[in-house]
């Protein structure tokens, strides 16, 4: 049996992925399935981050570019709790979720709420400012050297087809967590009072006030949920790509924002679809085309989709208000 070993170059997250690609049909299929699952796993993380972008955009009508950096803070918090304080993974995650939720609400209160009536551009610039602020604070506190994140998921995963198809525990947990959160969130928005308030505020803020809905509290809740999810996304991301620096959140943040636009910004199922597709496209492009060009391919696909359907795959046409 002739075997060739091809090593794929660095995948952009610092841990060169080396895989055996075996030129035999069955092996090719298994390889493809592995990539697909890795893509779904990465896509699930993008989807979780994209949720934060899409919900905040839908309800507060702003792009929170600091969202990616909340992921980084969440990952550092998990790292400190597990590696420095020796806490169990689940406790660390809960602490990180709590802190990021609070952080999200504080950012909203201090940086964005005073700009409620300001132009979109002012809010956007503020968001970019908050993003750099969080990165710089992280640089001061944690330094610029990467820390090695220990996966919070000790499970090795499942092996199929006599060892040819391996699904890592990280992938299984990331995909499951993402799906469960999506289902819970869609149920929450449709069936609870605060969820109802979110839908009303996203449709028409002034009319929502006339229904007796507290718009500020609703926006604050949206930031809380988005930032809590960012903590989970940070832990999952760094479990698969363990090199953690103050800039870790920035690229996944931009890609998740892309995923949100791709799926249709403002739409929760759109964030899921966009995130998963983006993850799959990225991993497949890395595996079969070029790992250097993977990001360019991802964005090229985005541009094509937006040319064909400017509101994104599941996006609603936004009506101009008179």
């Amino acid at each position, binding site marked *: 049996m002739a075997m060739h070993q091809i090593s794929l170059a660095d995948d952009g997250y610092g841990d060169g992925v080396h895989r055996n690609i075996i030129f035999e049909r069955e092996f090719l299929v298994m390889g493809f399935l592995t990539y697909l699952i890795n893509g779904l796993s990465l896509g699930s993380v993008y989807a979780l981050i994209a949720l934060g972008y899409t919900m905040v955009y839908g309800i507060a009508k702003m792009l929170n570019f600091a969202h990616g950096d909340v992921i980084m803070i969440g990952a550092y918090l998990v790292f400190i709790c597990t590696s420095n304080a020796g806490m169990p993974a689940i406790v660390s995650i809960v602490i990180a979720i709590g802190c990021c939720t609070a952080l999200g609400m504080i950012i909203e209160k201090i940086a964005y709420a005073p700009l409620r009536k300001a132009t979109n551009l002012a809010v956007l610039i503020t968001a970019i400012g908050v993003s750099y602020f969080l990165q710089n604070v992280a640089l001061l506190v944690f330094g610029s050297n990467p820390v090695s994140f220990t996966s919070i998921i000790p499970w090795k995963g499942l092996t199929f087809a006599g060892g040819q198809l391996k699904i890592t525990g990280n992938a299984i947990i990331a995909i499951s967590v993402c799906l469960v959160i999506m289902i819970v969130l869609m149920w929450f928005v449709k069936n609870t009072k605060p969820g109802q308030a979110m839908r009303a505020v996203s449709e028409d803020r002034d009319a*929502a*006030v*006339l229904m007796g809905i507290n718009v500020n509290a609703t926006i604050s809740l949206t930031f809380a949920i988005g930032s809590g999810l960012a903590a989970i996304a940070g832990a999952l991301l760094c479990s698969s790509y363990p090199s953690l620096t103050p800039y870790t959140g920035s690229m996944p943040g931009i890609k998740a924002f892309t995923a949100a636009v791709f799926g249709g910004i403002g739409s929760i199922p759109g964030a899921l679809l966009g995130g998963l597709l983006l993850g799959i496209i990225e991993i497949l492009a890395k595996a079969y085309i070029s790992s250097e060009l993977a990001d360019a391919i991802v964005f090229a696909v985005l541009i094509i989709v937006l040319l064909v359907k400017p509101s994104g795959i599941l996006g609603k046409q936004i009506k101009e208000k008179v």
Partner: protein
Amino acid sequence: MLEVKDLKVNYGVIQALKGISFEVNEGEVIALIGANGAGKTTTLQTISGMLTPTTGSVMLNGVDITRIPGHKIVSMGLAHVPEGRRVFPGLTVLENLKMGAYTRSNKKEIADSYEMVYESFPRLKERQNQLAGTLSGGEQQMLAMGRALMSKPSIVLMDEPSMGLSPIYVDEIFKIIQSISDAGTTVLLVEQNAKKALAIADRAYVLETGNIVLSGDAKDLMNDDSIKKAYLGE
């Protein structure tokens, strides 16, 4: 029931309301008429807490609501049907009505309100699963009114309910306003259609560039020469 005193509202340097005072008693239909830019919508928005006045006060059932945020005023028994209807276009008719009952929690009473609204607006029942954005203008107006009634208000503010509607719908909307009043709800109505408004109102106030220039019994105003000339086109 509702008492507005010396209300002044500014948009930047422009003074939209220059100190208006009026009152609405329980069970009345009060019309606020005037031309474009007279300050009618500003008055309603200030009452319902969307705008904050520079001076003056708004009392609702003896409580000063001038500085109370808009979302808290709804549960005090005041509903506002805004200008341009402002239904939630991406939600169904039923979901829109549900939003109207946002401040209430008693399921039995809410169910009664649905029934009451569907009785007054049978067309809404037919279309309850349709997206509100796909309704015609008249239907959207009915939905906006039904949605306001879902909060079980003691007073309803209505801003230009007949605007942009076909004559058949205009008649229907005024009939509905009359029946809302007959059911015991107080109505403060802002209208450009002065003729129709005066026909169903008990009393009326005439606004001109931020001042109340005339007030009185609706029937008297209808026969007033200056009103006839300026607002009734006679």
